[in-house]
């Protein structure tokens, strides 16, 4: 838990990012205030923003998808307009501004290093310290006459609201989990229904995570290709180099499919896979997948013997289950204690499984 430093606050990210040129389209003017001109933000999502979001979902330029921290205006804020706080991850920023169309409000963007609210709150960068620092630095208290600050509920792990109230003079309320409920929350006089307070992990929410899962785990496909290039060299009776490479590539295809099964299949099937731990769920998916591949060994040019069949099944199941275990870090339903428990139990099993599988494949090449 982060402790508020009483005297001098050192921000977690010493340099604030500037707004790059590709962001200019979202500003539609400036409003004059006591602290100087404040940029007004459009609540429209432009084709640029959509393209950027898609790229980020595939892990492209994810770390540089940032907005300059500071105070911005939405519509024409007046004396009763609240100040909403958000992180400087552009994907979140877009969701927030889009959900504010037709509202008059202030938007304080704090520097989380381009990380979303919940992840940043867990690491303390979406934190009370940063909010207090940002309020002071921007002079927000001078222009936000309502002295009402609305935080995203998912920022709560990093923000002690009473301390923020004490050091900024604002009244702090925790708004809804999702940006799209902000209007309803404000219209109901800052009251949240149960659904606004609850994080979900629906099909659509899991689906958007899958491209990055695949990109981040694509390295396993490379490792498998390397493995087959080595293994197929043993007792190599292919007539040509191309034949040898073709065999290795064919052998690797099921491994690429296994990574796809883990990256796309696991998140999507999460609620229907049996057992509670992600590792055990992953093993189930891995065994089903391996069984399917086992019915098609000739398609992928695998040797028709028991060690090869077992070896491939062991490595693919271990890989799928390992990627599944890693998905605990991307989900919002797992506890650290649970993750530690299953990692201690299963990670060694997956390592041994993959190694044993390799030995079996090696043996399979010799017979």
């Amino acid at each position, binding site marked *: *838990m982060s402790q508020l430093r009483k005297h001098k606050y050192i921000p977690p990210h010493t340099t604030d990012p500037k707004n790059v040129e590709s962001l200019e389209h979202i500003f539609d003017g400036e409003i004059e205030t006591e602290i100087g001109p404040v940029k007004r933000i459009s609540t429209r999502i432009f084709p640029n923003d959509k393209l950027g979001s898609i790229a980020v979902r595939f892990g492209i330029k994810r770390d540089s998808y940032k907005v300059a921290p500071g105070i911005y205006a939405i519509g024409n804020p007046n004396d009763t307009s609240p100040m909403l706080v958000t992180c400087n991850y552009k994907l979140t920023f877009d969701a927030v501004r889009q959900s504010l169309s037709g509202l008059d409000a202030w938007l304080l963007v704090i520097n989380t290093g381009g990380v979303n609210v*919940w*992840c940043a*709150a*867990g*690491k303390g960068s979406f934190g009370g310290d940063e909010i207090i620092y940002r309020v002071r630095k921007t002079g927000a208290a001078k222009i936000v006459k309502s002295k009402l600050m609305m935080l995203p*509920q*998912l920022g*709560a*792990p*990093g*923000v*002690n*609201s*009473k301390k923020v109230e004490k050091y900024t003079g604002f009244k702090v309320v*925790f708004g809804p*989990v999702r940006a799209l409920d902000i209007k309803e929350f404000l219209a109901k006089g800052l009251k*949240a229904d*149960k659904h606004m*307070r*609850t*994080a979900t*992990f629906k099909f659509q929410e899991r689906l958007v995570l899958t491209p990055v899962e695949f990109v981040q785990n694509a390295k396993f496909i490379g490792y498998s290709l390397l493995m087959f290039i080595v293994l197929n060299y043993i007792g190599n009776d292919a007539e040509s180099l191309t034949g040898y490479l073709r065999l290795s590539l064919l052998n690797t295809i099921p491994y690429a499919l296994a990574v796809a099964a883990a990256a796309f299949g696991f998140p999507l099937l*999460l*609620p229907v896979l049996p057992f*509670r*731990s992600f590792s055990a769920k992953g093993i189930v998916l891995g065994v089903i997948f391996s069984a399917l591949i086992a019915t098609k060994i000739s398609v992928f040019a695998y040797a028709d013997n028991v060690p090869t069949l077992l070896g491939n099944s062991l490595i693919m199941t271990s890989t799928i289950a390992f990627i599944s275990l890693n998905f605990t870090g991307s989900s*919002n*339903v*797992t*506890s*650290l*204690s*649970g*993750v530690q*428990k*299953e990692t201690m139990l299963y990670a060694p099993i997956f390592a041994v499984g993959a190694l044993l599988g390799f030995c079996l494949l090696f043996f399979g090449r010799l017979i």
Partner: protein
Amino acid sequence: MEYIKNVVTLKLDKDKCVGCGMCAIVCAREVFSIEDRKANIDFLDKCIECGACAMNCPIDAIEVVPGVG
């Protein structure tokens, strides 16, 4: 969706609790309810140890070892 049972480190000291309801407000997993001016842990196994409740409890009645989210 519930995760592994009986592992979370969340603890609530009911004697200390003043029933302000902050824990129920910040919890995104419906772990708490407030009854008779006391918080109650309804679904312990739903807790993901984010630490929001402990962070915002005004009298430190809640203890949890938080993960990094």
